[in-house]
């Protein structure tokens, strides 16, 4: 069971945050504010929609988005692939044990404690479809929008919340800091893991059923990581304060976004699509 897995130390390789596929398509060029708003609308409507017809329609749309943004659909599929075993296990559990809640519909099989109804089948199929749709949709969003654009988009979309004293700019700054520090901490963690492994620490070598052992293995990494993070935070606070950063004061932005007619058309399309998903009486 001793296996030294070299790839486990290459943490930075697994990080896909900030991954961006520049194809310059119409979706890439969309105003980030409008793109985020449309994305939110679509995700909410897909999460609520529970009909076969609606979910098929949503699946078609999310595949089309890959075509329009000229991003290879393999990026989306690579997100779905690791999930297939989970989807199958969950589907079986839902089928077997869900009779108490989804008891409506026609009973198809009734054997001992197993009741399979048309409603429980619908539940299984719809949650699998919903999963694929949302993975596709979120891949298109993150692959076609840079992190800076996303934070700018969030900041300007949340601007109305200022009237209720919500600190919008500070919130956007928090997100920027978080995204900025992920690769830094990944490097830091890699260093710590290598340092400890070279002194004989074992990571991920315990058998999978020894849960306590494997959990304890993580402590010598997690706790120094938090400490490093806190001291980095102190440095950053000092740096910001010595440059006279004052939370809550007025400041201007260096980049202005402008929405064009195509952006509004896309937004209207998404609104209509969301309404259709939620309100249209699909026969199935």
């Amino acid at each position, binding site marked *: 069971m001793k296996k030294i897995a070299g790839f486990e130390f290459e943490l930075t390789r697994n990080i*896909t945050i900030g991954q961006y596929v520049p194809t310059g398509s119409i979706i890439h060029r969309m105003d980030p504010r409008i793109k985020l708003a449309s994305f939110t609308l679509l995700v909410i409507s897909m999460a609520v929609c529970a009909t076969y017809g609606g979910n098929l329609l949503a699946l078609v749309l999310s595949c089309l988005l890959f075509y329009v943004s000229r991003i290879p659909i393999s990026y989306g599929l690579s997100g779905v692939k690791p999930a297939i075993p989970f989807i199958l296990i969950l589907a079986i559990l839902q089928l077997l*044990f869900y009779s108490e809640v989804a008891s409506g519909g026609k009973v198809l099989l009734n054997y001992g404690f197993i009741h399979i109804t048309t409603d429980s089948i619908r539940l299984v199929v719809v949650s699998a479809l919903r999963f694929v749709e949302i993975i596709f949709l979120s891949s298109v969003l993150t692959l076609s929008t840079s992190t800076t654009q996303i934070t700018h988009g969030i900041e300007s979309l949340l601007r109305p919340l200022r009237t209720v004293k919500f600190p919008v700019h500070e919130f956007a700054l928090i*997100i920027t800091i*978080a995204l900025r520090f992920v690769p830094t901490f990944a490097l830091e963690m890699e260093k710590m893991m290598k340092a400890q492994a070279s002194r004989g620490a074992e990571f991920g070598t315990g058998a999978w059923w020894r849960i306590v052992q494997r*959990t304890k293995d993580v402590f010598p990494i997690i706790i120094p990581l*938090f400490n490093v993070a806190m001291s980095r935070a102190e440095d950053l606070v000092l740096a910001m304060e010595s440059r006279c950063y004052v939370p809550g004061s007025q400041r201007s932005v260096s980049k202005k976004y402008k929405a064009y007619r195509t952006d509004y058309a896309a937004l209207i399309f998404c609104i209509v699509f969301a309404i259709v998903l939620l309100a249209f009486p699909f026969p199935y």
Partner: protein
Amino acid sequence: MEKGLTTRKIVTAGVLGAIAILLGVTRLGFIPVPTAAGNATIMHVPAIIGGVMQGPFVGLVIGLIFGVSSFLDATIPLFKDPLVAIVPRLFIGVTAYLAYRSLKGVNEITAIGVAGFIGAITNTLLVLLIAVIRGYIAPGVAVTIALTNGIPEAIVSVIITLAIVVAWKKLDHGTNKKSKISGEL
């Protein structure tokens, strides 16, 4: 604690949010417990620590970052539903803060430990509650998950929260009394 957002609060929230994302994408934040809901997690610990150290708003924002990153990164259909992935996570830091503040007068170290426990329990219970309401898992399965995932999560969360917050606050916990984990490591 000072009122309003200070630079320190902003930076702490950002940095702990980064850890929450990192624990998710590197899979280091998972404890391999084989159940239907997948692995137990320690990704909620940054939210608890943020809540205890810098107040409810910071805890809430870190919870939000954790929720959104787990939503975008999910490999389990359950967490591809924003209602399950994001909404329950908002409360982790807030309840941890409330637990900490109400017990702080009694004993600071106990208060930190209890906050770690309450935060983890908040995450487990709210996620499972919404998952049952939304129809992803049956109530019976949810109880099993609460036991198999929730308890290890809560224990680990208490240990990590104590180790980090006590060290950061430089609390004096007696010269002959060792920290709870020093014997283990």
